């Protein structure tokens, strides 16, 4: 996609805002937003629109939920924050310090107070053990933090892969369906739509399954549309136009087959230019292509 107008029309920004894109496509949209201020602006507007929608549904949580949820959240995040493992430490630390401070004094009277010296020997051993255990805890804690963030990353990756797979599966089944339509000349009749005198180079075709009433459209070339307009396909039945739906920007650009509305009976198909969303009846002087079955 070269110019920003195409990006705005592509429908990708809406998909981005709704969270439908896989990570690669998201990154692509973000890069486009960085490149074109117009894309950034449009994307921000769409995101803000959804934010408004989300916030319009705000619901004050039931009484008591604040204390429960906030209490559990704070408990959970505190165990993962250094402040709490440090909390029990001051208690054991006090005796440790006292023993160490009194130690030189105890040593000087060693011959007189042998039991005291032995006691302080134990105390020193105990405080060293405690120190080692604190250091050990700190290391374990760091490891735990690392593991937690690794796990969070891995889970994030997994979710992204799962959603990317879903997207690919949907694309695959859409492609298979298109292939089926194209490979079934018995089921689908090919109707060539040629340009009207005003648009001699316009060309498209319709694949019509009369038994199943299915209609697909495939664009070869159509003149660019003014803004706020869409091509609309009409089935002509006994001379009467029946709405067969509007063409997406992608279909208009010739990106692939698009399934249109079901049509029970038709002798011809034609396309006109209508306001976005389509009209109830065709604007005949905008007819671009037409073809008989």
């Amino acid at each position, binding site marked *: 996609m070269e110019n920003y107008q195409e990006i705005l029309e592509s*429908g990708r920004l*809406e*998909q981005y*805002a*709704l*969270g*439908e894109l896989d990570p690669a496509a998201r990154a692509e949209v*973000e890069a486009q937003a960085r490149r074109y201020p117009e894309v950034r602006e449009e994307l*921000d*507007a*769409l*995101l*803000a*629109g*959804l*934010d*408004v*929608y*989300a*916030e*319009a*549904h*705000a*619901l*004050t*949580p*039931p009484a008591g*939920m*604040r204390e*429960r*949820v*906030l209490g*559990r*959240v*704070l408990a*959970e*995040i*505190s165990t*993962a*924050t250094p*402040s709490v493992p440090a909390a029990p430490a001051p208690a054991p630390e006090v005796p440790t310090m006292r023993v160490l401070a009194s130690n030189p004094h105890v040593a000087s009277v060693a011959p007189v107070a042998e039991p005291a010296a032995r006691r302080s020997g134990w105390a020193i051993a105990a405080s060293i053990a405690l120190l080692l255990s604190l250091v050990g805890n700190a290391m374990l804690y760091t490891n735990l933090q690392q593991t*937690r*963030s690794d796990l*969070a990353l891995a889970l994030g990756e997994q*979710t992204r892969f799962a959603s990317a797979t879903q997207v690919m599966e*949907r694309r695959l089944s*859409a492609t298979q369906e298109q292939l089926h339509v194209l490979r079934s000349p018995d089921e689908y009749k090919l109707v060539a739509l040629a340009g009207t005198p005003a648009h001699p180079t316009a060309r498209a075709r319709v694949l019509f399954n009369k038994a199943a009433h299915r209609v697909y459209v495939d664009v070869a070339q159509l003149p660019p549309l003014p803004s706020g307009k*869409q091509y609309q396909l009409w089935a002509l039945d006994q001379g009467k136009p029946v709405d067969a*739906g*509007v*063409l*997406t920007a992608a*279909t208009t650009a010739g990106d692939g087959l*698009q*399934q*249109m*509305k079901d049509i029970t009976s038709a002798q011809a198909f034609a396309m006109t230019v209508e306001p*976005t*969303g389509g009209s109830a009846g065709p604007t005949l002087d905008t007819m671009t292509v037409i073809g008989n079955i």
Partner: protein
Amino acid sequence: MPDEPLISIPTAAEAALVSRLRARDETAMTEFYDRYSAALYGVIQRIVKAEDEAEDVLQEALVKIWHAIESYDPSKGRLFTWVVNISRNLAIDKIRSRQHRVSSRTQGLDDSLAAQRQAAPATFRPEHVGLQEITKQLVPEQRQVIDLLYFGGFTQSEAAEELNLPLGTVKTRARTALKVLAKLIR
């Protein structure tokens, strides 16, 4: 302050909250809850329906936001957009994991619409762009599509299938609806 519309919180206030969360300031979490919980709970509740599950998802979302705040990139969008998406994704994962979708998706949505209507007087804050205004601005067909996409966790193709409409129609409706919504705050 928690009552001002989140969408109009000045960027500076948002940035201050983000940097406190990044600095692992637990009091920032309480402030975050007071500001954002109603909006997040509203979205979650509408997706998962059951109150106890909504509470669980809200809690999960807050913990996730706390742990993932480093990865929030303000240049890609507002904090609100980011946290709503986290909550919405967790809620959608929840309904997918209990295989809730296939059996009761459409009906559930309708149920919750009714529930919302009943709950409305007590819980909607009038200073926000309210549902009434949105209902006034969006035609029912657009509203239905946006509801499926946003609260049903459907993609546009899935919504087209669900509503038995051509994908193009769903896309047009979604697009028009998003444009209308975007205009509400301009």
